[in-house]
């Protein structure tokens, strides 16, 4: 079946630093979305990409369908960035099935 492998499962950053989250796909995906789970448990859509890169503030995402991966870069991390981040990919074959990665738990400390 369609598989989304997300890494790392957990990440600790100091304020002001940065890092990248990654999702690898075992099959060709049509598009990818990145979500953040907020303090109330709701999934907030950060990016939707069918190709290329998008940037929003301190976040930047890239998606390469051919190479089967997507990344989410966080720079100048702030305490409020702490939370769980998920990627979700839309399979290229059949319907509009969207499958999630297992999530990355980010903790930003002073």
């Amino acid at each position, binding site marked *: 079946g369609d598989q989304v492998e*997300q890494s790392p499962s957990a990440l600790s950053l100091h304020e002001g630093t940065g890092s990248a989250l990654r999702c690898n796909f075992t099959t060709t995906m*049509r*598009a990818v*979305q990145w*979500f953040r789970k907020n303090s*109330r*448990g*709701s*999934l907030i*859509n950060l990016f*939707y990409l*069918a190709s290329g890169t998008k940037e929003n503030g301190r976040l930047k995402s890239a998606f390469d369908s051919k190479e089967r991966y997507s990344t989410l870069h966080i720079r100048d991390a702030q305490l409020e960035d702490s939370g769980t981040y*998920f990627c*979700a990919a*839309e399979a290229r074959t059949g*319907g*509009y*099935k*969207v*499958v*999630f*990665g*297992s*999530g990355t738990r980010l903790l930003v400390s002073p």
Partner: protein
Amino acid sequence: EAGVTQSPRYAVLQEGQAVSFWCDPISGHDTLYWYQQPRDQGPQLLVYFRDEAVIDNSQLPSDRFSAVRPKGTNSTLKIQSAKQGDTATYLCASSLGTISNERLFFGHGTKLSVL
């Protein structure tokens, strides 16, 4: 624009009891998804609809779970005889369902505890 609305927000059951979850998607969104998210895991697709038609319910435990979307708008997910392993947050999402944009919008979810 109103978002995806789900109810109830919380449910606590004894094993063997039944429960229904209700979802009202964003107006005009043709595609509706139900996900199950156990604690500390990613959402796992249960079933999704295009209008009133079920497109994929292969991950729905058919002996106890059922989902309908009779008019292609609101949807109901029902668990007939809950088990402790059903404890999770149940998320509803909707999207326009077009080739060019399948961006998902989620409701707040229903947090289910089965004792």
